[in-house]
């Protein structure tokens, strides 16, 4: 027993050292530095935060919109999960992959997508105006609560589809049939059998969605507009605009403690779904679509998922291929023509600017950072996953598991400032290091890497290793011939996750990247922040390319994924 703890500790050493240096240390530095600026003492900002009506309003709104968003996400995700879990149909892998693309897209691209689709002169409004001869766009979408909710559903439905869907697909359908033979009707089966069995997966998925919605920043700022503020937005506002660092730090700490509570709960729940009841192989749980009712349900569900989760991105891609002159006129009377001009322009640095590197080379930068992130995240994720896979319930693992998730729920503004303050002086002078970006990306990708690897590692029974050993395999050969091949596909999935997350990450990158090495999302942001058709068009074109990368990554994940219970 003792010995096992030591092994765990050893495995955790590298991941913990990484978190300590690149997460807790910068975060601690910035929080303590900020709080020490408070003239009325360290506690005063907390008192101020708790007493302030406007802060209270912000917290109320943060929780309320997160609850509402989570509910709506479940509303779309659960029937979708049912479809993916219980039926086998052509194009299912593609559907899963497409629904995963939004998750890794930067907010500014998503916002551009939504405005291309639902903006005053987006495709839908223009179509409606032409169809019914309306003088004004009938749909006001941007800057509404609806925009926030829809965008959250857009981003996070894939979490429910994956976590609940995977779990569901391994649940024995005979349990439901058994209940039916005992006299339960379909509703009772759902209510008394299926949902209770699914509940750990549903709760875990809902909690993860809630964490993401709770700490939402870009969606609120760009799509929600000035009338809405979450805690994260308020932290940004207090930091950047008002320079009230003590209050910002108090709010950050508040947000962090909420997130910590949720990640602890999440780690408990996800431990439950990784070692569930007796699971069935997919072959026995999935059927074909036979009755017209099933087909109709599948058709409707697929259509709904595609409409909500892909049309904004398709609208963006469409716009990147059409001349923008067409939307000049408020009547929208000029039919837009097709063009590849924006794509051609991507390889040219017209201004010969040192920093305004061509958008295409920004993709090269993104790929380089993403590769570094993959290496770093795997090196750190493997031992952590190994420790978790041997015994999830060991006291050490129980403490450390939730910590991995914490960076996901930490204010990017705060952490970004912390990076600069804490990592700017010897021995850790990373001010201008190009490693800062992959390090930050690794913090984000880490939990996903660990959670892709752990179930696969758990699936290697010690017996297989023993079998190889008694057949004459040395410890090294056991790793090569047993562990690696079996974990290999999970490794590919984890690597692809890290890669795709890194490609799409914007928040941290914008604070840390070196000006001469902008990533694709940073280049998009730069293009978007300048007037002129070519700039806007190139931003759309580059966004489309980024989307293509994300889609390819998600397809790769689908291909390599082991048909085991995924944890997300």
């Amino acid at each position: 027993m003792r010995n096992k703890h030591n092994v765990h500790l050893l495995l955790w050493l590298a991941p913990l050292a990484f978190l300590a240096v690149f997460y807790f240390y910068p975060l601690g530095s910035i929080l303590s530095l900020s709080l020490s600026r408070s003239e009325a003492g360290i506690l005063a900002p907390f008192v101020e935060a708790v007493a302030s009506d406007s802060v209270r309003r912000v917290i109320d709104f943060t929780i309320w919109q997160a609850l509402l968003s989570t509910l709506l996400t479940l509303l779309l995700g659960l029937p979708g999960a049912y479809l993916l879990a219980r039926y086998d149909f052509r194009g299912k892998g593609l559907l899963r992959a497409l629904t995963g693309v939004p998750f890794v897209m930067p907010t500014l691209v998503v916002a551009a997508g939504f405005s291309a689709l639902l903006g005053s002169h987006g495709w839908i409004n223009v179509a409606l105006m032409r169809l019914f001869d309306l003088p004004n766009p009938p749909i006001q979408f941007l800057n509404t609560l609806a925009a926030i909710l829809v965008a959250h559903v857009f981003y996070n439905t894939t979490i429910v589809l994956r976590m609940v869907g995977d779990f569901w697909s391994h649940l024995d359908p005979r349990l439901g049939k058994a209940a039916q033979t005992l006299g339960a009707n379909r509703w009772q089966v759902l209510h008394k059998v299926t949902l209770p069995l699914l509940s750990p997966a549903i709760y875990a998925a809902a909690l993860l969605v809630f964490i993401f919605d709770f700490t939402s920043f870009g969606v609120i700022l760009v799509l929600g507009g000035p009338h809405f503020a979450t805690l994260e937005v308020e932290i940004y506002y207090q930091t950047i605009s008002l320079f009230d660092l003590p209050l910002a730090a108090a709010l950050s700490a508040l947000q962090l403690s909420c997130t910590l509570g949720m990640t602890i709960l999440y780690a408990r729940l996800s431990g439950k779904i990784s070692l569930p009841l007796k699971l069935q192989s997919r072959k026995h749980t999935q059927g074909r679509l036979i009755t017209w009712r099933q087909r109709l349900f599948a058709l409707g569900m697929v259509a709904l998922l595609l409409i909500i989760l892909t049309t904004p991105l398709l609208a963006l891609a469409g716009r990147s291929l059409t001349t923008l002159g067409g939307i000049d006129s408020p009547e929208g009377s000029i039919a837009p023509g097709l063009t590849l001009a924006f794509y051609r322009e991507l390889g040219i640095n017209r201004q010969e600017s040192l920093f305004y590197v061509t958008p295409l080379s920004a993709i090269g930068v993104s790929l380089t950072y993403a590769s570094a992130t993959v290496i770093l995240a795997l090196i750190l994720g493997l031992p952590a996953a190994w420790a978790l896979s041997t015994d999830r319930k060991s006291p050490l693992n129980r403490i450390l598991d939730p910590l991995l998730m914490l960076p996901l729920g930490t204010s990017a503004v705060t952490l970004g400032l912390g990076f600069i303050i804490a990592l700017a002086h010897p021995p850790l002078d990373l001010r201008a290091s190009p490693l800062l970006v992959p390090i930050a990306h690794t913090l984000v990708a880490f939990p996903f890497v660990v959670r892709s690897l752990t179930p696969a590692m758990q699936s290697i029974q010690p017996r297989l290793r023993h079998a190889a050993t008694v057949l004459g395999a040395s410890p090294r050969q056991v790793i090569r011939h047993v562990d690696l091949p079996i974990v290999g596909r999970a490794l590919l999935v984890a690597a692809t996750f890290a890669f795709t997350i890194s490609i799409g990450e914007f928040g941290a990158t914008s604070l840390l990247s070196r000006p001469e090495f902008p990533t694709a999302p940073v280049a998009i942001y730069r293009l978007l922040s300048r007037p002129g058709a070519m700039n806007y068009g190139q931003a759309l074109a580059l966004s489309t390319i980024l989307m293509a990368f994300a889609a390819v990554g998600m397809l790769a994940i689908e291909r390599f994924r082991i048909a085991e219970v995924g944890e997300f």
Partner: protein
Amino acid sequence: MSGLSLTDLHKSFGPTQALRGISFDVAEGEIVAVLGPSGCGKSTLLGIIAGLEEPDAGAIFWDDRNLAGVPPHKRGFGLMFQDYALFPHKNVRENVAFGPQMAGWNEAAIRQRVEEALILVGLPDYGERDVASLSGGEQQRVALARSLAPRPRLLMLDEPLGSLDRTLRDRLLVELREILQRTGQTALYVTHDQEEAFSLADRVVVMNQGQVAQIGTPQAVYRQPANPFVARFLGLNNIFQGEVHAGQIRSPIGDFPAPKDAVGTITFLIRPDTVRLDGSGSAQLKGLVLARTFRGGFCRLEIEIASHSLVFDLPSTGIDLPQPGANILLDYDPRDTIQLL
């Protein structure tokens, strides 16, 4: 001696003592079955012999060489797991070829050996199959082929037929014995099923709570269990205590003729399979039939004698057996039926 030799092996897991002084030998070419209920330490014993676990005390010898410190992959022992532990990411051929590969055989030799091994287990054309697509019996044969392929000095089999249905098990049992004998394989076979152990092994080691309860040929063990545990484990439950007085055993269920060497307080067994109803015995037992179960070749009668329930097996052909509720008179020969334990 040549072969395997175990001396006084001990192993504990926390407060649980899994092995408490196990000693026995397996001669080269011999098939020894370790028989015992689940939890008696059988699997631990295999793990220790294979080198997957370290004994707390005691030693393992092969050809008089102490194996302490020799890692499992260098012992040249094979182990076939209860659940087969086939590599899910390799096909049948790759599974079977694994051992020879690890031993560094050349390609041609490996290919030939895999073919041989698959023919041996009766799956000659299965090489390219996915292991997940095989039935339980087929998986079992692949596992056997895999453990045989590298020609282990000693093959250990851990309940290899445990999860199969009866017909399949009976058939495979015969084949397994044939294969082991044909190849002259030294084998240590672990099972909880006496039938398996008896039909396969040259010698049987009965284990109980980490200790050896009896060692002997299957016939010897069945004919003369060494102690009440072995007797009960073999399904012989008519066990009582008595006092020997003047050539008679006095027991709660009555008096019986005592075997020659019996003195003082003894435990004795009334063998259930040596009684008859034909009036030919030198002694009789009188009782009340409580239940009657048809078991194919024989009938099992539960009979109450002096408020104790005893079980007897009688041939089901020939005479009509009494119904429950009827009185019965059983004939027996004390020399065959009454055994000291």
